[in-house]
């Protein structure tokens, strides 16, 4: 393992008003590793993920991307333009896909490479085709998102995130709004990404995926990491009662 983790989360806290959603969470994600976050809804796992790429601003704590602090630069708050630059390194996949409906599939994928990275349209299109091929949707490049199934839309969203060549991918319950028969095609793509050595943080209710693919599993409860370890440890022999209860409910 390298000395500097790809993502280091240090004592992140987040409150919405008087509601304390995260109460000090710390963990590292090493390059090429997959970390799954599991836990009941309301445990803070999505908020934690959103704090990492600063869709939510943490109330306290810091996130380091390759050792570089996300929230501060030279001891001062990092300006939004600088945060935008850091966000390029973190691909995000949402529960609701969030494709832009007025652009074609390829348009969605190449938008940020052109406008943010300044790639030429031609180079971006080549990259876009490559990313679409990785999610097995090359033939849908010219379609509009409304014509695709949920599973296809989510795979386009994955391709869109990959096209920025991020250092890590963040998945926020990527299969939770999909019909059961469509989750597999998304999970297959994610398994392949993991196998190819993509650094990933995955918030998920798919216990099978978390067990088979992750290097580490975090069980969140009440805004804190209640249990963490290798999948074998967390799924096979959890120390915490709450984790055991949660798993017995979710592993039929």
């Amino acid at each position: 393992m390298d000395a500097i983790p790809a993502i280091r989360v240090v004592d992140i806290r987040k409150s919405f008003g008087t509601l304390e959603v995260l109460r000090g969470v710390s963990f590292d994600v090493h390059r090429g590793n997959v970390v799954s976050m599991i836990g009941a809804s309301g445990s803070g796992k999505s908020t934690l993920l959103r704090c990492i790429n600063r869709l939510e601003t943490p109330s306290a704590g810091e996130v380091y991307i390759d050792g570089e602090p996300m929230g501060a630069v030279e001891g001062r708050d990092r300006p939004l333009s600088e945060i935008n630059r850091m966000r390029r390194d973190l691909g995000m996949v949402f529960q609701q896909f969030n494709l832009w409906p007025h652009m074609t599939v390829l348009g969605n994928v190449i938008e940020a490479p052109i406008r943010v990275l300044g790639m030429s349209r031609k180079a971006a299109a080549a990259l876009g085709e490559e990313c679409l091929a990785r999610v097995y949707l090359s033939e849908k490049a010219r379609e509009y998102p409304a014509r695709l199934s949920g599973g296809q839309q989510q795979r386009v969203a994955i391709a869109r995130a990959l096209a920025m060549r991020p250092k890590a991918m963040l998945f926020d319950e990527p299969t939770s709004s999909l019909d059961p028969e469509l989750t597999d095609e998304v999970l297959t793509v994610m398994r392949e990404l993991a196998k190819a050595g993509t650094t990933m943080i995955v918030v998920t209710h798919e216990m099978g995926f978390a067990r088979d693919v992750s290097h580490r599993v975090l069980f969140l409860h009440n805004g804190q990491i209640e249990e963490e370890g290798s999948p074998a440890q967390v799924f096979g022999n959890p120390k915490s009662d709450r984790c055991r209860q949660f798993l017995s409910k979710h592993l039929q």
Partner: protein
Amino acid sequence: MFWEYRLVLLRGLAFNAYVFLAAAAVALSVGLIAALLRINRAWPFRWIGTLHVEVFRNAPDYIMVVWVHFVLPLLLGAAIGRRIEFHPFVSAVIALGFVYSGYFAETFRAGIQSIPLGHIEAGRSCGMSEFLILRRVVLPQVVRRMLPEAINQFVSLFKATTIVSLIAVPDLMYQVSMVIQQEMKPLPLYTSAALTYFAVIYVVAGLVRLLSERWRNRIYA
């Protein structure tokens, strides 16, 4: 009778079109700015935006045209200590542009707020700036969503251009009144004028609706 004067009248209609186009440009740009103010997080901006919308939406266009043409130059003149006068065309464009900017601001605001936050967050997580997201993700969708309502407002604006004859912009209505003073035949002339406006608006608005529907529907399919 109407046919005899067709060249004069056509020139008048062209003036309607000029006023309409210029006022529409003012209304759209000022309306967009007002809408962005209204949804701003800082309350002073929100307050200015709301004031703008309420003032102009609730001002009759006739009074606005007269006020901008006759009162505003006096106020501005007093402020800079020099006599100024607006060309009637300029007054008409300012007055109608601002009145309709109030309506367009509301249309824009509703459109912007109807865009799911997730689309914006997807842009943010790709490293896009807020301005880039507005330009590339939000506004293109807003335009499609607001089109049906906007077309109705454009129709109202075009009809409203007829009142500029009151401050002597030589539009179709103005020309018709002039001809009537010579010929003393209001019935055929006014009726033809009404029919001309009807035909122009009906055909153009219908055509725009037809063309825009297909473009709009592609994203909702």
